[in-house]
């Protein structure tokens, strides 16, 4: 699974660099099946916290909420603006990506 991730990051190297170079504080990429951190720029504690709360709890609940409101709809992207940060969460089929800026 990590080989797929490395290939994707390599193919989109310029985009990844642009995302990381601007106001970004960090990012977490997690594997959906293993429910583990695949790639991150944070330390392990912060990455695990984001994995547990955002990827595990929030994404799954948001997906079911979107289904409840309209069964033919599907969650594509999520942004949480808080006082200090903004969390950009992109749930994909195999990975979930969070960028904190």
């Amino acid at each position, binding site marked *: 699974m990590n080989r797929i991730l490395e290939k994707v990051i390599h193919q989109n190297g310029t985009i990844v660099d642009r995302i990381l170079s601007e106001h970004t504080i960090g990012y977490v990429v997690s594997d959906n099946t293993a429910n583990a951190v695949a790639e991150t720029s944070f330390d392990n504690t912060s990455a695990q916290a984001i994995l547990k709360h955002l990827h595990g709890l929030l994404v799954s609940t948001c997906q079911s*909420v*979107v289904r409840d409101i*309209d069964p033919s709809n*599907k*969650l*594509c992207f999520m942004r949480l*603006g808080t*006082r*200090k*940060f903004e969390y950009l969460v992109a749930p994909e089929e195999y990975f979930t990506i969070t960028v904190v800026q």
Partner: protein
Amino acid sequence: MSKIYLKAMEDVVQRNTDNTNRITEQAQGFVVSENAGDSLLHTSFDLTTAQSIVKHLHASFLKLAQSCVRDLDTDDKLCFLRVKTRKHEFLVSPEEAFTVTVVL
């Protein structure tokens, strides 16, 4: 209780008429609910759709998002929430007494 909130909301809308009109032009609709009882205050949708948004988005998901943000950083607080789906985009703004959701 609802009358007090309704009055306060009308004051806010009155003060921000230009913003409200601009938002309403672009949006499919909006839902305003009060936080205390999670009851519907004002909406441009039909009642079924609005109740569905209040029940799922405001009462359930928004509370969870707020607690998740609090868990991640105890000093932090959720100010705005955007949920982009295949068909719509929900913009949720939790305030002290109201929650406003605009659907694009």
